[in-house]
């Protein structure tokens, strides 16, 4: 029988978040030397920020210990960081064989989480619109 490790959604986001944190430690240096950046296409084209603007700035601030700077750039990044920090021990525990494999969410739970995520993203958009003086 073919078996595969099944990661839960928070675990997948956590793995991605850890990767982003690692990249954020070298991003300022790489950016300074090469000029490479990750501008928001929507903001570049229209001037209007998207809900996810500020995530790069906030992640770089977080890994350098500047929590206030991170909040000022994107509170959404703080929530993602909290998810990563909260889920990391569970993920590591599972990887070393402690605990059972995650159970897939029911359609109802997935829908509820989707609504919560949608509200958070909408809130982030309002924040970014305010940050860039559209509100």
């Amino acid at each position, binding site marked *: 029988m073919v078996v*595969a490790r099944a990661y839960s959604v928070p675990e997948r986001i956590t793995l991605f978040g850890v990767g982003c944190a690692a990249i954020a430690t070298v991003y300022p240096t790489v950016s300074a030397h090469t000029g490479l950046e990750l501008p928001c296409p929507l903001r570049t084209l229209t001037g209007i920020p998207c809900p*996810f603007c500020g995530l790069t700035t906030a992640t770089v601030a977080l890994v350098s210990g500047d929590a206030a700077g991170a909040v000022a750039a994107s509170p959404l990044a703080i929530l993602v960081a909290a998810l990563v920090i909260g889920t990391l021990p569970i993920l590591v525990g599972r990887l070393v064989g402690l605990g059972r494999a*995650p159970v897939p969410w029911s359609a109802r739970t997935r829908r509820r989480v989707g609504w919560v995520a949608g509200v958070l993203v909408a809130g982030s958009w309002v924040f970014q619109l305010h940050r860039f003086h559209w509100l």
Partner: protein
Amino acid sequence: MTYAPSTTTYANWGQRVGAFLIDVLPNIVLGIIGYVIGNTAISLLFDLVIIAWWVYNRGYLAGTTGQSWGKKVLNLRLIGEATGQPIGFGMALLRDICHIVDNVICYVGWLFPLWDAKRQTLADKILKTVVVPA
């Protein structure tokens, strides 16, 4: 170590990123060589080769067989959600154009397979396509 039987019928995010990186690798190499040479005519020629390769690999191969080079290496297949069959040349090209939507919101559309039930990007949702293990 505890393993769960695989219930996944869709390619995961890591596999999809790997396949995409393989697809764009020739373009990156040619782009860098063209940039280093610095000759306008050669750069233009390389740009045309890059576009032709993209259309062949991501349009023709992915559209008609379900497998671009990257997907073939990673053993994945691009299919229509409803039909389960390759989506065709034009739709495969259109899907890549629709990836603009994934880019617009700070590239977060590309991350949707991390949490989406069908592991779809926004472009996949627009065109009703999925990527599955071959």
